[in-house]
């Protein structure tokens, strides 16, 4: 008897685990922030590159859906195939409302960067390949200052600013990023300033440490430094969001993220700006109090690996064509002994260090891929792609130019090149995905 009860309990437990939290009900409305979460960079890479692709290949449900040509559509769309509003993930902007180039320049606002004058450095980051520090300006606003790799001056900072403003115009919540120039003399050290040393220990921040950080950064001819100032977002940080599942302790998060239109439909926008680094760790949920209530708002952050930048170096020409571990490409290469030539091998490097590597001529709008699979992108359907492509299509040359001008490239060729590349890529996306769409608002079949 005991064995039978044990077996029944084991089975029940197995079923509970197997069904997972997906059937769990919402935690109910409350005014306490959800718990803070974090994503392991390494696990995210391994899970999405190795484990999840294997799971998807062996998933009978997915197989049946593919066989029946009946993908699961986004769950938070209305009868016009538009995102049900309001949304704490996305706000209708370009494509839905008139946004002027000047408004793109302002972005999430105010777009002015730190107030000029003396800045207090409160924290510095010396470990890793990208040095940086946190400052407080004279108005008491806090910013994180990031820099370019020495051999690719202007590249990563430009990418961060341009892409964040484009994503803002596309409707997403992003930080207020801008290019700043400052002199070493503009920096004071806060009395309680700290830095994290190479071994991950917090230490008091000193002038020597600050000098060490700046010694790893390209200096302009006039002795000034160029950086990207990102205004710290207001609210209590809750950690990144995942591109699948839900925050089960957030009563306003009832739709699995991989089935949200805003996330699935972000694929063409990422493809457009080559945001191959679009992954969970580059997001941030904040517990915000505004409009008489407290809630979770979802943000995209860290755009330093967009456009032609890989943050610490130029993007490789393979970016966007292959995942880091791309089984399809591997299989094709094995079967053809490497004689099937990849499209990226035809691309031409612009040889503009401030741009890195991005091009528009050989961009394939049908099969662009991030660095590694993104769960929401994997679930995308034609409807999702068309939704995002319409937003991309709403960017005029003036909008694009307005965003690119925020990069303040020293070389005017870089500005012109990036504008033209973004126009080319936008056009290719439109020709691939909007050619058969009769109107913007009519519902249609996948």
């Amino acid at each position, binding site marked *: 008897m005991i064995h039978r009860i044990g077996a029944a309990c084991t089975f029940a437990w197995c079923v509970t685990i*197997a069904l997972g939290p997906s059937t769990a009900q919402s935690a109910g409305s409350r005014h306490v922030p959800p718990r803070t979460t974090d994503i392991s960079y390494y696990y995210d890479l391994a899970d999405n590159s190795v484990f999840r692709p294997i799971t998807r290949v062996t998933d*009978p*449900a997915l197989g049946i859906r593919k066989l029946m040509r009946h993908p699961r559509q986004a769950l938070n769309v209305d009868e016009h195939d538009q995102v049900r509003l309001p*949304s704490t993930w996305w706000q209708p902007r370009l494509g839905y409302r*008139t946004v002027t180039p000047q408004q793109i320049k302002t972005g999430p606002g105010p777009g002015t960067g730190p107030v000029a004058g003396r800045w207090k450095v409160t924290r510095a980051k010396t470990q890793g390949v990208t040095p940086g520090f946190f400052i407080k300006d004279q108005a008491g606003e806090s910013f994180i200052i990031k820099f370019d790799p020495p051999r690719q001056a202007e590249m990563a900072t430009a990418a961060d600013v341009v892409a964040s403003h484009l994503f803002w115009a596309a409707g997403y919540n992003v930080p207020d990023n801008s290019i700043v120039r400052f002199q070493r003399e503009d920096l004071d050290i806060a009395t309680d300033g700290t830095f994290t040393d190479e071994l991950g220990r917090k230490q008091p921040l000193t002038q020597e440490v600050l000098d060490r950080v700046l010694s790893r950064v390209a200096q302009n001819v006039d002795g000034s430094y160029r950086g990207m100032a990102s205004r710290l977002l207001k609210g209590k940080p809750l950690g990144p969001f995942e591109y699948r599942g839900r925050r089960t302790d957030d009563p306003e998060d009832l739709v699995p993220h991989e089935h949200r239109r805003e996330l699935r439909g972000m694929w063409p926008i990422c493809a457009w700006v080559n945001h191959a680094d679009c992954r969970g760790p580059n997001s941030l949920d904040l517990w915000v109090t505004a409009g008489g209530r407290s809630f979770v708002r979802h943000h995209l952050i860290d755009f330093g690996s967009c456009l032609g930048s890989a943050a610490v170096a130029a993007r490789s020409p393979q970016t966007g064509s292959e995942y880091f571990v791309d089984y399809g490409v591997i299989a094709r290469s094995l079967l053809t002994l*490497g004689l099937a030539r990849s499209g990226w*091998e035809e691309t031409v490097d612009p040889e503009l260090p401030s741009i890195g590597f991005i091009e528009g001529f050989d961009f394939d709008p049908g099969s662009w891929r991030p660095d590694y699979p993104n769960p929401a992108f994997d679930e995308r359907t034609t409807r999702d792609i068309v939704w995002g492509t319409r937003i991309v299509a709403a960017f005029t*040359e003036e909008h694009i130019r307005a965003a690119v001008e925020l990069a303040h490239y020293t070389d005017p060729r870089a500005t012109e090149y990036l504008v033209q590349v973004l126009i080319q890529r936008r056009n290719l996306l439109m*020709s691939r995905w909007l*050619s058969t769409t009769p109107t913007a608002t009519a519902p249609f079949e996948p």
Partner: protein
Amino acid sequence: MTRNALLAGALVGALLAAPALGSMPDTPVARGGAPFIVALADTGGAAATSRDLGPTTAPPWNPPHAVPSAEPWEQAARLPGRVVSLPLSLLGSLTRHGLLSMEEKHLVPRTVVIVAALPRLGIIVTPASLGDRTGLGGRFGLTPPFLKRALEAEWSGSTRHYSRTRVRASQGALSLEYGYDWRPEERFYGLSDGSSQKDTASFATQTTFVRLGLAYRFAAETGHVPLEVRAWIGPRSQVVRDGREDHVTPLSVGFPSVSGGVRQEHLVYGVSLEADARRGRPHWSRGARAELSVEQFTSPTRLLALNDGSMAPVQFTRWGAKAEAGISFWRDPRTIRFAGRIVNQVADVAGQTLAVADLAQLGGSQGLAGYEPGRFHDMDLMVGKVSYIFPLAQHYEFDIHAEAGGVFETLRDAHDATPKTSYGVALRPRTALAPLGSINLDWSRESVRFGFHLGGVE
């Protein structure tokens, strides 16, 4: 603003915008030249206010209840797989939490910092490269920074008790080196490539040497093909004993004619000339390398002998020639390489056989990788290899190769011999700059061998 009002506003805005479409300043045209319909929902009216464009503070739309990630039939279809893979899920969860904890404690940057700091302190810790069938090994080196690399010392050891010690002092082109090698589990199958695997014997070698070297590199800065001349002289002491493998016939039993237990003292001197014009990334993909060498093993004067030899050594001359060349095509290089190696050893007294450790050998990484290491021994050898390396993906490349060759009493016998052949493939993880290692699978008529290398692939 209520949800419905917002929704209605968005819809009305979108509908109003429809007539304004198609007025884009740069009408897109598909690459092939075919026009397409553009449908936008942007409004042509007055700019939205910053309040309209700001993020909403209204409660978001949500379904009445949480929506499951999968529909009930999908969950049912997945249930067997989920139950079967529960242990894997548990392992995944543990890995996830372990990695997160590791990242929160900065373990990776800490390790990187420590590993990066070691060479600055003159300490080198790497995997050992002691050869095939030597087990897992490590290498520990010391290069005192204050001596500016004028003195280097290293020790390598492995789980199969192989060890190597080197101490090297150098100044400019001159160097003085001391070396000691202990190889306890080497294999011998008999002379000639007609030897049989059934006749396996085990032997051990203990080698000590001191070598004065001179190396000079021409045209390193002038853009010509770098040419390096090396010359060396010094005493060597070598003892061949029965191997330390319990279950393998000792050399003295299996092959008494080449039996060990005898120390041979040699004075070794030689010269080599090497030209290396290989280039390309991530693997060398173009150019060629060639090396010619001659080495004389003679009887040492009593003054130079490291020990008292118990018998007069077999004196001989070793000629060696190596060459490899590669051509490649396309941007991510597909490379075809050709390589060849010849060793010709001539005893001063005709008919004398060299000590087993001095014989030319093939098998394993010495050539014919599909055969066991040391599978073929004789006075001379000739082996050739052709490889084709092609990219698999951004961070992987694949190597397909074939080898043919043999060992001979004299190279003249190669004319009539049927070459042994070996085939293999290797998966090589890579960065944009270099291969990081390789996982190899080689096979021949006799065996299939699996191996891996960490670094040092090229």
